[in-house]
């Protein structure tokens, strides 16, 4: 067993175990903790998949930002002393049956496809990573430097596909989706601040 395999099994076990613990735990704060464990371990999976920038963004944005926001949401919406929000045992049993059926469906689908052949067919004779297309200054993905090409792709330039030796293609990048998603994030955050603003609590009428 190589180190890569060992790390994969550790990270995969922690990711899946954390996700299952999120489902089985009834306390919301412990659910948030297990979600942090699961998302952190899945960022380890991203590092194993040579996606170092995505793994870093997962740690910074998800674990550092989104989950802290959720913990604040848990704290600000403490449940009352008389309301117990437990799932009924019958519902849990039914959900377990549905979960096993769905997992069996997805797992059998993944295992029944011959991915080697599919990948070879879609690659169309090209190698999986076009090493020649990478210029100097842009490291191989195996060396774990995707930040520079990702930044260029977000600006609309694709040096990993074009500009190589004998390259005749012109690929477009992601400048317009990048702008749309950034303006979308700004609008959503302003709207969230407007929705969650402090206002007088109205009397509950039910």
């Amino acid at each position: 067993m190589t180190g890569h395999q060992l790390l994969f099994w550790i990270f995969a076990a922690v990711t899946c175990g954390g996700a299952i613990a999120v489902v089985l735990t009834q306390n919301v704060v412990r659910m948030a903790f297990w979600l942090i464990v699961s998302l952190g371990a899945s960022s380890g999976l991203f590092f194993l998949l040579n996606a170092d920038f995505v793994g870093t963004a997962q740690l910074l944005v998800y674990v550092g930002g989104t989950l802290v926001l959720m913990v604040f949401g848990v704290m600000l919406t403490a449940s009352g002393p008389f309301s117990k929000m437990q799932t009924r045992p019958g519902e849990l049993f039914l959900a377990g049956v549905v979960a096993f059926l769905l997992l069996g469906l997805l797992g059998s689908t993944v295992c029944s496809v011959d991915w080697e052949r599919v990948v070879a067919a879609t690659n169309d004779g090209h190698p999986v990573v076009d090493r020649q297309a990478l210029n100097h200054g842009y490291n191989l993905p195996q060396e774990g430097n995707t930040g520079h090409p990702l930044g260029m792709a977000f600006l609309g330039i694709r040096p990993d596909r074009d500009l190589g030796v004998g390259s005749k293609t012109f690929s477009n990048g992601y400048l317009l989706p990048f702008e749309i998603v950034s303006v979308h994030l700004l609008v959503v955050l302003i709207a969230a601040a407007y929705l969650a603003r402090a206002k007088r609590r109205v009397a509950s009428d039910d």
Partner: protein
Amino acid sequence: MDLSSYLLVGAVLFVAGIVCMATKRNGIGVLMGVELVLNGANINFVAFANYTRLGLDGQVISLFVIVLAAAEAAVALAIALSYYNNHLTIDVDQANQLKG
């Protein structure tokens, strides 16, 4: 490791998120289920980016997914806070004002 191992991890995360969304009565728990589903999709995107010719495009799409998940969490938590201010509970079974 081959592609199908990573796809199986993504499938486990997806199923856990679906079950979490379906069974939790706490609104924040439903949100955590959504995060699990999005993270399972992200693992699939990055796995395909590494093992196929998708390349950098898969990583770009997974970054978009991360940003949209952050935006969704922000606005959903604002809605949850507003709901809590009006109903003094976060139980989604009590949310029947629209008689849907």
